[in-house]
């Protein structure tokens, strides 16, 4: 669905769009429960659950103790037996405390039991840098979880997709991990009213172009689009693909674009080595689209260090618009 074509679309923030999705789910499905730390009267560390507790009560908007492993496990057990929990990690970094339940239990139960069960679990992870919260509150760990068969991993970049992917995740019978960028929570966009879903596993072409393909995730989509405007003024037409889902990855959309442009730039905030862009690059290199490449693939990712506190350092270790411009210009050289 395109929000622009929808008469009842309104401008909402990314956080408001997520809250609206949870509101719709709580309203329409008694099996849905929200669980997380300080998601009740506090409204969530980033005010995403907001005032939902006042509408649905503490039995359905449940504050958990500070027990990430136990809380995640309770959500797994609840999903396994008939509820539809939406579990919020206060910061995605804290998922490290719960990896046992996410990786060994939620992801594998269906397989280990030979298909006898499904685990319809939704987990939300406020992720990314830019808040000055330093190394344990700023990571982008989507590649950790995307490495685990049995999980699905999505990274919405717009309010419309944040709502649509959450509602799609709730309809999905398997565990879906949603990485929400903290800096995007206040960003605004048109969001259709009512219930709709954004398909898991489908990328979106945010800007059409012919000279190079930029595959970006999450907040990097916006930086890539900003770069693309500048590039257009210089006569370079970049196609910007918002990957949206990291696992399963939309192979066809990426390959078709690379066949058209012959150049690939991957931009992602997670650590560059073995990150999402590594998989995108390998996917292209292993396919027939490789024959269409006119230049080596370029990746821009997070630096090989934890996220630092100092604001200038913090900016320096993740891709920014000037870096994307430099990489895109170098890559497009020879084509213009």
């Amino acid at each position, binding site marked *: 669905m395109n929000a622009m074509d929808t008469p009842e679309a309104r401008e909402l923030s990314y956080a408001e769009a997520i809250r609206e999705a949870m509101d719709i789910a709580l309203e329409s499905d008694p099996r849905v429960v929200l669980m997380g730390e300080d998601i009740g009267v506090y409204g969530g560390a980033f005010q995403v659950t907001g005032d939902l507790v006042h509408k649905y009560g503490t039995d359905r908007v449940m504050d958990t103790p500070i027990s990430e492993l136990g809380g995640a496990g*309770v959500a797994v057990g609840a999903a396994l037996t008939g*509820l539809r929990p939406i579990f919020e990690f206060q910061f995605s970094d804290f998922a490290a405390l719960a990896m046992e339940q996410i990786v*060994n239990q939620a992801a594998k139960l269906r397989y280990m039991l030979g298909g006898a069960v499904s685990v319809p679990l939704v987990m939300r992870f406020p992720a990314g840098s830019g808040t000055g919260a330093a190394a344990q509150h700023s990571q982008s760990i989507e590649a950790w979880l995307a490495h685990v068969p049995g999980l699905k991993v999505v990274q919405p970049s717009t309010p419309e997709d944040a709502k649509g992917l959450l509602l799609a995740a709730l309809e999905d019978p398997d565990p879906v991990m949603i990485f929400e960028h903290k800096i995007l929570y206040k960003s605004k966009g048109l969001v259709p009213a009512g219930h709709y879903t954004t398909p898991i596993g489908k990328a979106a072409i945010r800007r059409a172009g012919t000279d190079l393909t930029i595959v970006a995730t999450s907040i990097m989509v916006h930086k890539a689009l900003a770069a693309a405007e500048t590039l257009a003024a210089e006569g370079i037409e970049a196609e910007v693909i918002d990957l949206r889902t990291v696992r399963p990855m939309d192979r066809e959309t990426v390959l078709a674009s690379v066949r058209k442009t012959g150049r690939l730039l991957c931009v992602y905030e997670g650590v560059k080595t073995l990150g999402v862009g590594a998989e995108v690059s390998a996917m292209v290199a292993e396919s027939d689209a490789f024959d269409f490449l006119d230049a080596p693939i370029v990746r821009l990712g997070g630096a090989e260090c934890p996220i630092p506190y100092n604001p200038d350092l913090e900016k320096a270790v993740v891709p920014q618009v000037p870096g994307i411009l430099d990489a895109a210009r170098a890559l497009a050289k020879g084509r213009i």
Partner: protein
Amino acid sequence: MPDTANSDTNLPYALRAYSREDLVGALRKMFLIRKFEEGAEDSYTRGLIHGTMHLSIGQEASAVGSCMSLTDADKITSTHRGHGHCVAKNADLGRMFAEFFGKETGYCRGRGGSMHIADVEKGNLGANGIVGGGLPIAVGAALTAKRLGTGAVTICFFGDGANNEGAFHEALNMASVWKLPVVFVCENNKYGMSTSIERSTSVKNIADRAVAYSMPGVTVDGNDFSAVTEAVDAAVARARAGEGPSLVENLTYRWRGHSKSDRNRYRTKEEIAEWMERDPIRRMADLLVSHDILSEAEVGALEAETEQEIRDAIAFANQSPAPLIEDATRFVYTEEMA
């Protein structure tokens, strides 16, 4: 369900609470567990099973006694030493052996093996390869029961080793804070692999830890069927009445090593022999014989009957087809991807 019609308080609890049929059924299940484990061990020796296994010989009263008052609607979560729990929760022995043999007819179509046997139709949410892995999952199952008002109770089996995992503390705390219908049954067999409870645990009894989570905690002779049943039935009744969780510690002993790699360097032959003297099956049989519920001859016949059932189950597993290699990546997702 316990029937408290017989009010002769001089009788052991189990004889007051359960019918002759229930009690004979319980002894029969205990024999089935013992014979299942012996059959598994024998199959391993013959090379029919690869991988490892964790046998529960000696712990049969804990598994069967704990599940006496459960129905198929009630749930259990189990452990890596979980074969007994499956049998106690009425699993099909042929499908259990088939899983063990890695066959398509097994409970997990051969994908899980000994450490992942589950039987969701009967309320068995599965064994777990991670020590403590089932604890929060059991709390989640109890949360579902409370939210949806199903009336179901969950029994969470775990070993003494798991009581030092963070998951134990987080799970018990949440179950208590939310007053959930779950019973934590610790099967304390004295050793977490090779490390004794004395060397690993700061409290004398694991049940002492219940105090920290404001729930009742009781330690019982886990090789005494009636004692186990009395403690767990009370905890299940409490859970069912909406009064919240309990912790029951069954003191027991595994006769065999932790797994096939165990060279038994951490305990003495004398200690093992001493515990074999407290054989829970012999004690249950003696209880039933001394109260004229069964004769010795009938006990012998019951044992022989269970041996035949195990032979039949092994034959079923042997004759069952293996999974197809091309299906190795099936069942990762519900809607399978290309």
